[in-house]
């Protein structure tokens, strides 16, 4: 009996771990365009600048010196069943890439910020994406702004290029004539970038990478289009007993947050999935308050990576905000 019990327990644990492992499978899109850095030694690095036309420029980047072009080549990403497997290089003229005219580099793994590749005769190397710009998200929500004691709740994304921030924000916000759902105007979102002052406010500010930024921006742009074209997913009707605006906002914040971990487990996310075991929020509060508690829970889980007020204000100078 004991043995049977132990075997059953082992099977359950193994099955559980298999399911968990499958559940962790991520879908990273592969985009080589941009600049990648291979750090050869503490003082020496190689830069690879891939353009969208199929050319790559290789530069040596010694410490404290301007990068120098050392080769130029054509490149082609080779796919199998829609997944990138390797990159084939053909050097122009007398150029050489990896010591030859033609060379194929096998892709071992990749995520939002790095590629691990194997070069024949050159071993395995890791490239990291070089990006002069910085990217941030801010999740802001309040209580007590509207008649039902709920409040604004919207995500913001910030691109900091050359010291100038560009901000996009979409969700439920307090407009002059009450609650509004859509693109949040700069005059409104500026007040929500700062630190929460009490229990009725919650703010989480995180630095993200360019790929996370692009995915999050795509979600905001899609919802802006939905608002513009009257194509919101929930609309008022007899088939809905809940407030459709709150339901739409849940879809926005959920998609926005979940896209951050689409490629790797970068942040400690709360599972807003309506499953009782995972999700206490939707089990305990009405849809109107879900984003507030969701953001608050995310703040708790990612406190160590939250950017404090002073540091954030040093990075993002609000007078220089470039609104779209």
């Amino acid at each position: 009996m004991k043995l049977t019990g132990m075997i059953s327990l082992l099977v359950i644990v193994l099955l559980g771990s298999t399911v968990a492992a499958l559940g962790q499978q991520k879908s990273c899109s592969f985009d080589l365009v941009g600049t990648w850095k291979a750090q050869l030694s503490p003082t020496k690095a190689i830069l690879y600048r891939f353009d969208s036309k199929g050319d790559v420029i290789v530069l040596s980047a010694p410490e404290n010196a301007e990068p120098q072009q050392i080769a130029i080549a054509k490149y082609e990403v080779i796919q199998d069943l829609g997944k990138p497997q390797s990159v084939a290089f053909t050097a122009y003229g007398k150029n050489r890439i990896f010591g030859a005219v033609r060379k194929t580099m096998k892709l071992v793994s990749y995520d939002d910020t790095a590629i691990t590749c194997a070069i024949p005769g050159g071993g395995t190397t890791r490239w990291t994406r070089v990006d002069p710009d910085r990217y941030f998200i801010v999740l802001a929500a309040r209580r007590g702004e509207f008649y039902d004691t709920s409040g604004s709740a919207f995500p913001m994304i910030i691109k900091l290029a050359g010291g100038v921030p560009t901000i996009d924000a979409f969700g439920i916000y307090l407009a002059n004539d009450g609650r509004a759902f859509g693109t949040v105007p700069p005059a409104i979102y500026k007040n929500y970038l700062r630190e929460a002052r009490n229990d009725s406010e919650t703010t989480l500010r995180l630095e993200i990478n360019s790929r996370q930024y692009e995915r999050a921006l795509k979600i905001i742009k899609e919802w802006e289009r939905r608002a513009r074209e009257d194509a919101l997913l929930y609309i008022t009707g007899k088939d809905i007993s809940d407030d459709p605006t709150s339901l739409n906002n849940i879809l926005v914040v959920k998609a926005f947050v979940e896209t951050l971990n689409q490629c790797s487990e970068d942040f400690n996310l709360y599972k807003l999935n309506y499953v009782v075991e995972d999700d206490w929020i939707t089990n305990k509060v009405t849809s109107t308050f879900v984003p507030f508690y969701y953001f608050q829970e995310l703040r708790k889980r990612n406190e160590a990576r939250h950017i404090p007020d002073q540091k954030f204000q040093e990075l993002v100078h609000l007078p220089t905000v470039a609104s779209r």
Partner: protein
Amino acid sequence: MDRRSLFSRGAFTPHPSSQGAAKFTNAVLRTHDNKAVKFYDDLIRGKQCVINMMYADCHGACPLVTTVLKRTYRDLKDRMGKDLFFYSISVKPQDDTPAALKHYAEMRGADLPGWYFLTGEPYDIETIRFRLFNMGHPGIDLDFAMHSGTFRIVNDATNYWGHAEAFASQQNILKRISWADPYKSYGEWAKISRARQVEIDKDVKKYGYRTGF
């Protein structure tokens, strides 16, 4: 009825209370014959239709649901393409080209008059899926598999909005589709009533009581 008249606007009259394109959207979809159609104007406006969501590479419920629709089509074939239409919309439009849907329809013996397999932009398909099948619950509605066993039954001429479960009995499915039928005149109801009485009389004579519905 030929395709030209099916897709010509104004052939069917919507109910004055119909929310029209504001609810159904007028997204441009493509049929399995690669014809561009406007969802409300060409497919829903003033018509009675049965709509389901599927995808061609589905090995779960979709083939079974298509089989149920095929059986339903056979039972209602005199009306199909005239005043009743079936629309099977792909939830994987990025994979399901019109050609892929044509292949699916042919393989399942479902390439039939009045039955259209539809694909389009993912953005539009998502809007239509929510507008037709949402249950006001993001946890359920975000999972497109949750709707795969449900038929949405619409009659825009009578402003009827109902549904049927694909795995209910065939009698139940037919009954639910009939609830969306166009308004009948007193004369038509009298004719139906007389025919029904004949069936009841037969039952009573044979079994001593009435069977069926």
